[in-house]
């Protein structure tokens, strides 16, 4: 007999999901860095996109970013083996918070009060979704 599989969110899985968001932010940071070093490149057509990708292939940041993407896939698959897709996806929206923060700190972009409100709403939403997946105490 198989023991019933745990399908609820635990603190460990929540921490793994947050680390996916952090990895995602690191990956985006690397991609932005590699793209910025070629910012004089003009993109007007689909062919330009391919040429642009060819140009940035030697960039170390691009490869570092791709390593993060592979790590994300391994971690994401692990998480999906434990919890519902409809929980994993919304909880992973932390990157909508971390990416503006990183943009603010490293690329000196500003965050308006509307954005701060959005960040607040996302946090509330993530808490609600997480709550919906936490195992409740079984009543006797």
């Amino acid at each position, binding site marked *: 007999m198989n023991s019933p599989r745990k399908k609820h969110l635990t603190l460990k899985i929540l921490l793994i999901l947050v680390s996916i968001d952090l990895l995602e932010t690191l990956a985006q940071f690397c991609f932005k860095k590699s793209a910025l070093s070629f910012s004089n490149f003009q993109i007007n057509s689909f062919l330009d996109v391919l040429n642009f990708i060819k140009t940035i292939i030697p960039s170390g940041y691009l490869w570092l970013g791709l390593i993060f993407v592979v790590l994300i896939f391994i971690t994401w698959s692990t998480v999906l083996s434990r919890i*519902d897709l409809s929980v994993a996806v919304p909880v992973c929206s932390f990157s*909508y918070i971390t990416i503006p923060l990183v943009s603010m700190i490293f690329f000196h972009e500003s965050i308006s009060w509307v954005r701060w409100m959005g960040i607040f709403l996302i946090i509330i939403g993530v808490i609600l979704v997480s709550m919906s997946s936490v195992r409740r105490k079984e009543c006797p």
Partner: protein
Amino acid sequence: MKLGIFYIIGLVLLTDICDTISQLFLKSSINSIDLHINTFKKALELVIRLAKIPVVWLGFVFSGISLCIWLFVLTRADLNFAYSVDSMRYILITLASMTILKEKIGTIRWFGIIAVVSGIMLVVLG
């Protein structure tokens, strides 16, 4: 060249549909493997077993298509607007999880997802 608003919404929704399909393929494959992961080695084992499932690769193809459409949209549309429409992916994934993967979604989870979607809209439009 700027594209019409409905054209942009349509293309962004198309990327979301492709991503949803890709996630559904991945999740259903993982469900079929049914491996209990407690070490990094086990996680690698899962990824290797996933790599042998054709549907997972089909999912990658859908992700690739989605990325291409998305890059095309980004060159032709207002970034913030495109990103705000893109937040609809959360609704699509939830509906797909509910109908296809038979996940049970209660009121609290729906409220949470709606809060996340509205939050994202504020972040990208604000």
